[in-house]
C-alpha cells in the first residue's frame, strides 16, 4: 500500500478548489500529471543556485549545470534500463522524439515502396509523422485494426508484416482506451524479420516499470510532463545500433565538432541530436521526478493505479446508459466512456462545475474514433495520488449528469 496522505501532501495543487469552492478531483492524468514539491523545488533551486548554459562554460556555474544535466542522462539511462548513456536523447516530449526518428531514421531508411506498420489506436503524434513520411517517400502506411474491445490481434501483426516493412510503431498504452498493448510480442515478431520497433511510451513511463533492454525495443519515446516531471522535456531512447546510422535532425550550436563556411562535422553521440540550448531546468526537474518515483517504487505504483483504474471501470459500468469504450484485458490507468445521449463535452463541463477534471473529445486519435463510429469520449485517468473515494465522487457526479439530461 501507498501512504496516500503523505503522497498527497507532496502535490500542492491537489488542495486547489474551483470557483465555486469545490475541491479538485484531478482525473486528467493522461493529459498531464501533477508535479510534486520535489520537482518544483528542484527546478526553482536550479534557477536560484546553478543556472548556466551547459557544455561550454569555463566558469563554475557552467560546470555545475553541465554536471546536473549529464547526471540526469545517466539517471534516465538507469531508469529505463538502457545500456549506454549515449542512447538517451533529450527532446521536448514524445511528439518531438517520434518526429526525430521519422526525420532522421525515416529519411535514410525508408524508400519508395517500403511499408511502415502502426496500430489503429495511435495518438496523432505516432500516426502523422509516419503518414507524412510515407507520402513523401512514396511508401505505404499499414494499420493494425483495433477490436471492439480496444485490442490488437497479434496474428494480424504477423500477417501485416511484409518483406517491405521497414518499421513498426506502436503505443505501449493507448491514451484513448487504456489498453496495454502486447509490445513485447510485437517486438519479437518484428525482430524475427529484422524490423526495428518504435514504442510510444507516453502513457506508460511513470505508471509502471519500463525496461527498454528487456523489451528489446529499438526506439522508445516519452514525455516528462506525463510522469510527474516538467513540461517541455522528454526522452527519446535509440538503441546503439541505430544511433550511429542516424544523421542529425536539427542543426546549430551544441551539436557540432568543427565548422567552416562550407562544411561541418558533428559532435559525438548523443549531442549531435541536441541542437541548441536545451531545456536544462527541465532535464534537472525530470531527474527529480525519477528520484521521486523511485522513492515510492514503480511496482507499487503500477499495482495501485491499475487496481484503482479497474475499480473505476467496474463502478462506472454500473451506471445505466453509460458505455465503457474499450474493454481490454490489460488496462492501464485510463477509462473512456460515453453516455448514449449525452455529449462528452457536456459531461466534462458538468463535472468541471463539481471540481472534477476529466478530458472529453477525440484525445488526438480521430481515426480511431471514426473507426468506432463515435465523435469522442469522456476519459478519466488516475495516478497514484488518486483514491477510491475520488472515484466514488466521480460516480455520483456522473449519475447527476444523467439526471440533468433525463
Amino acid at each position: 500500500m501507498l501512504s496516500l496522505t503523505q503522497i498527497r501532501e507532496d502535490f500542492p495543487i491537489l488542495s486547489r478548489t474551483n470557483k465555486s469552492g469545490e475541491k479538485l478531483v484531478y482525473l486528467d492524468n493522461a493529459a498531464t500529471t501533477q508535479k510534486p514539491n520535489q520537482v518544483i523545488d528542484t527546478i526553482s533551486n536550479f534557477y536560484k543556485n546553478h543556472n548556466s548554459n551547459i557544455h561550454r562554460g569555463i566558469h563554475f556555474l557552467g560546470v555545475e549545470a553541465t554536471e546536473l544535466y549529464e547526471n540526469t542522462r545517466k539517471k534516465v539511462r538507469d531508469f529505463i534500463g538502457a545500456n549506454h548513456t549515449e542512447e538517451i536523447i533529450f527532446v521536448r516530449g514524445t511528439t518531438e522524439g517520434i518526429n526525430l526518428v521519422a526525420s532522421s531514421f525515416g529519411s535514410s531508411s525508408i524508400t519508395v515502396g517500403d511499408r511502415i506498420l502502426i496500430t489503429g489506436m495511435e495518438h496523432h503524434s505516432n500516426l502523422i509523422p509516419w503518414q507524412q513520411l510515407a507520402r513523401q517517400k512514396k511508401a505505404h502506411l499499414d494499420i493494425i485494426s483495433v477490436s471492439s474491445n480496444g485490442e490488437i490481434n497479434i496474428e494480424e501483426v504477423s500477417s501485416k508484416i511484409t518483406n517491405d516493412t521497414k518499421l513498426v510503431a506502436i503505443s505501449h498504452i493507448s491514451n484513448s482506451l487504456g489498453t496495454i498493448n502486447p509490445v513485447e510480442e510485437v517486438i519479437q515478431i518484428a525482430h524475427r524479420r529484422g524490423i526495428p520497433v518504435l514504442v510510444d511510451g507516453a502513457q506508460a513511463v511513470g505508471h509502471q516499470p519500463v525496461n527498454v533492454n528487456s523489451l528489446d525495443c529499438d526506439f522508445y519515446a516519452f514525455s516528462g510532463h506525463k510522469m510527474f516531471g516538467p513540461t517541455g522535456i522528454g526522452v527519446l531512447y535509440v538503441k546503439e545500433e541505430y544511433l550511429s546510422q542516424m544523421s542529425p535532425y536539427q542543426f546549430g550550436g551544441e551539436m557540432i565538432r568543427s565548422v567552416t563556411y562550407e562544411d561541418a562535422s558533428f559532435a559525438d553521440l548523443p549531442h549531435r541530436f541536441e541542437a541548441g540550448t536545451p531545456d536544462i531546468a527541465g532535464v534537472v526537474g525530470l531527474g527529480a521526478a525519477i528520484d521521486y518515483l523511485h522513492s515510492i517504487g514503480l511496482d507499487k505504483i503500477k499495482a495501485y493505479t491499475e487496481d484503482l483504474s479497474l475499480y473505476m471501470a467496474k463502478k462506472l459500468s454500473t451506471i445505466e446508459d453509460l458505455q465503457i469504450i474499450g474493454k481490454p484485458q490489460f488496462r492501464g490507468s485510463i477509462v473512456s466512456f460515453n453516455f448514449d445521449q449525452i455529449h462528452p463535452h457536456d459531461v466534462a463541463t458538468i463535472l468541471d462545475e463539481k471540481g472534477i477534471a476529466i478530458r472529453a473529445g477525440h484525445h488526438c486519435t480521430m481515426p480511431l474514433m471514426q473507426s468506432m463510429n463515435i465523435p469522442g469520449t469522456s476519459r478519466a485517468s488516475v495516478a497514484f495520488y488518486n483514491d477510491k473515494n475520488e472515484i466514488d465522487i466521480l460516480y455520483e457526479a456522473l449519475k447527476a449528469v444523467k439526471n440533468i439530461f433525463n
Partner: protein
Amino acid sequence: MSDNLKSLYHEVILKHNSDPQNFKKREDAKYIIEAYNPVCGDQFKLYFDLDGNTISNLSFHGYGCAISKSSASILTTLLNGKKVEEFININDLFNNVLSGKPLNDKIPEELLAFTPVIAHPGRIKCVTLGWDSLTEFLNSEK
C-alpha cells in the same frame, strides 16, 4: 445539483437538445453550409434558401453537444423568414451578450439561456458555432 449547473443547462437548452427544431437534412437546399468545430468534433450542416434578402426554409442537421445543438436549433426558429440584416443585428446583440456586455432588451429571450456559458470560456464556441458559420457565409457572399 448546484444552482450554477441548473442555470448552465437551462431548461431551454435541455428542451432544444432533446427536441431540436427544424432538425432535418435538405439536399436540394440552395445553400448548404458546414459548421464544424475541429476542437470538439461538433459538426452541423445548415440548409437554407435565400429569396432576395430573406432567409427561408432554414434547417440544420448533424452532431454536437447540448449547447451547440440547442443554439443552432434556436437559430433556425428565430431566423427563418427573416432578412439578412435582421440576422446580423441579432447576431451582434447575441455576441455582445456573450462577451459580457450589458443586456439589450431587444435580444430574443431564448438566447439569454446561454448567458451562464460566459463562465465557461471553453464552451463559447459551442454557442456560436452555427451563428458564426452563417455569418462567415454571408460575409463571403457580399
